[in-house]
């Protein structure tokens, strides 16, 4: 292994960490702020470090500190100490590991060496995800059982039944996808989606396999225990559900695990149905051939975008009292944005001026694709949050009816139809 390959592997692991763990506090913030704005409230906006609020993001840091330093209380009745402590770890680790097979960019070729841009360089792809996503429910069930509380047990039972019924439909919808894409390796699946359908529509999964997309997205919501399928923690009936008896960081692991799982589900939805790291109409080859134009476009649009962002910040990032330290934030943000602009434009300008070598084109492609993936991931996470603050919870029988009587037959029918189409096309 050369130093380069070590460097790329470490970079990939860091990226995977950032997208899963690093995103969790941001997602908590997004959740709370979006919930506020949807309900005509403000959401957390006070917390600040020397006036820097970042729109309330600092609150997430404060909450994490609080979780770490809280008393880790455990009821005397809980005797299965090991299981009790293991449960949140299982939930967290399985959510975290399922992120590891998502490709962030097309295979990177530097000096003739080929690197797979994902956390773990394996071809298992979607099988890995299905296996680990199903594992997290064991953590929930173990936690619910070891808590020795009726609420926890009921919550865990609901979660178990729900995941079993939705996993079936999810697996079946994935089968029809595999028939279409002809591979379980997520990199191949994304490469397939870079092509054009009939020459003018991007062949994204959501267009090629709309029914599978709907089924998969619905089941992903259930899999991540998000509203409308978050029966496992119905506050009105069973308090906190499976995590009623947990406190401090053991609860924190459940909590963060939920967001990592949501992020992982979004990542998989993006990879399977929304073209993965591809920009629409720009697959890897096109992106590489048109790289100078793309870079020029970025150089032009970045200052424009920053200008509008700055105007918005200046207008809205205000605090009630004029003299408050929080009012100094806009100036700091402005400096930061200008600095970023100068840095990016100077870098890209130098790159264009010196001329693009194959290696620099490849690296630039990878960077653009990672950013595209991040943007899509963020959007999909936003959809998860948005749905949560729109829909009420399903009733338990409705949930099971939907899972077994609607999604499951639909998924099977979809497999048959896709198989027929593929065979007919292949003839």
């Amino acid at each position: 292994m050369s130093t380069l390959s070590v460097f790329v592997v470490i970079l990939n692991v860091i990226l995977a960490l950032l997208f899963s763990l690093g995103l969790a506090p941001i997602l908590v913030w997004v959740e709370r702020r979006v919930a506020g704005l949807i309900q005509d409230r403000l959401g957390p906006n006070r917390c600040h470090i020397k006036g820097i609020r970042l729109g309330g993001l600092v609150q997430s840091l404060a909450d994490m500190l609080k979780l770490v330093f809280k008393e880790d209380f455990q009821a005397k009745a809980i005797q299965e100490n090991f299981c009790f402590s293991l449960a949140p770890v299982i939930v967290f680790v399985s959510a975290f590991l399922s992120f590891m097979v998502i490709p962030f960019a097309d295979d990177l070729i530097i000096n003739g060496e080929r690197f797979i841009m994902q956390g773990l360089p394996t071809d298992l792809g979607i099988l890995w995800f299905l296996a680990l996503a199903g594992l997290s429910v064991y953590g929930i069930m173990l936690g619910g059982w070891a808590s020795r509380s009726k609420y926890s047990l009921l919550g865990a039972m609901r979660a178990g039944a729900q995941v079993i019924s939705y996993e079936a439909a999810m697996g079946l919808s994935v089968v029809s996808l595999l028939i279409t894409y002809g591979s379980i390796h997520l990199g191949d699946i994304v490469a397939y989606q870079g092509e054009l359908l009939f020459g003018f529509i991007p062949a994204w999964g959501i267009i090629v396999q709309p029914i599978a997309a709907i089924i998969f997205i619905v089941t992903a919501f259930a899999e991540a225990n998000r509203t409308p399928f978050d029966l496992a923690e119905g506050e009105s009936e069973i308090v906190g559900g499976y995590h009623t008896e947990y406190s401090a960081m053991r609860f924190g692991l459940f909590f963060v695990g939920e967001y990592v799982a949501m992020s992982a589900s979004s990542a998989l939805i993006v990879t399977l149905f929304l073209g993965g790291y591809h920009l629409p109409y720009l697959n890897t080859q096109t992106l590489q051939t048109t790289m100078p134009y793309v870079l020029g476009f970025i150089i032009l649009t970045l200052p424009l975008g920053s200008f509008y962002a700055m105007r918005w910040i200046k207008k809205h990032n205000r605090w009630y009292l004029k003299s408050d330290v929080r009012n100094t934030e806009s100036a700091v943000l402005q400096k930061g944005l200008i600095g970023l602009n100068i840095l990016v434009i100077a870098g890209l300008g130098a790159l264009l001026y010196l001329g693009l070598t194959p290696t620099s084109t490849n690296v630039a492609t990878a960077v653009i694709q990672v950013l595209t993936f991040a943007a899509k991931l963020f959007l999909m996470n936003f959809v998860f949050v948005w749905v949560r603050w729109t829909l009420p919870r399903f009733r338990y029988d409705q949930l099971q009816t939907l899972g077994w009587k609607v999604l499951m037959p639909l998924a099977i029918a979809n497999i048959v139809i896709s198989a027929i189409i593929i065979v007919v096309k292949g003839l």
Partner: protein
Amino acid sequence: MGIKVVKRHGNTLKEKLYLPAIFGGMKTTLSHFITNLSDKPHISTILYPEEQPHDISERYRGVHRLTKRDDESVRCVACFMCATACPAECIFIEAEERTDGVDEKMPKRFDIDLLECVFCGACVEACPCDAIRMDSGIFSFIGKKREDFVLTKEQLLANKEKKQ
């Protein structure tokens, strides 16, 4: 009497598909989200401790106060009507004879336990002399011990009517 059949909703195909309704709801929430991010947000949240509420009306039931006569002496005649009317039984009155000739009786002690009070206003309705009112406009009362929440006659007399 005839039987009225109430139409059940949720049985048509469109409703059973869930998705149209879900997208409709998502449209509503997104429109709220976007208006609130744009230049004219609908948010009426105030930044509370710094910004005080501005909608405390004249009829708002705040912390009680004991009113005074024209000569600045206590108006209450210790008739116990308020204490009798109080559903929370949180008014404690001790009467004494009034010697200044204005009236015959007045309270020696007049305590209200705010931790028990449910702010129903029954005491105000019951008083025949208009001696107790809840128009001080105080909506938040802070104390460090339980005892701090038992308002004495002096404190109640010191509370002023809220200026509109």
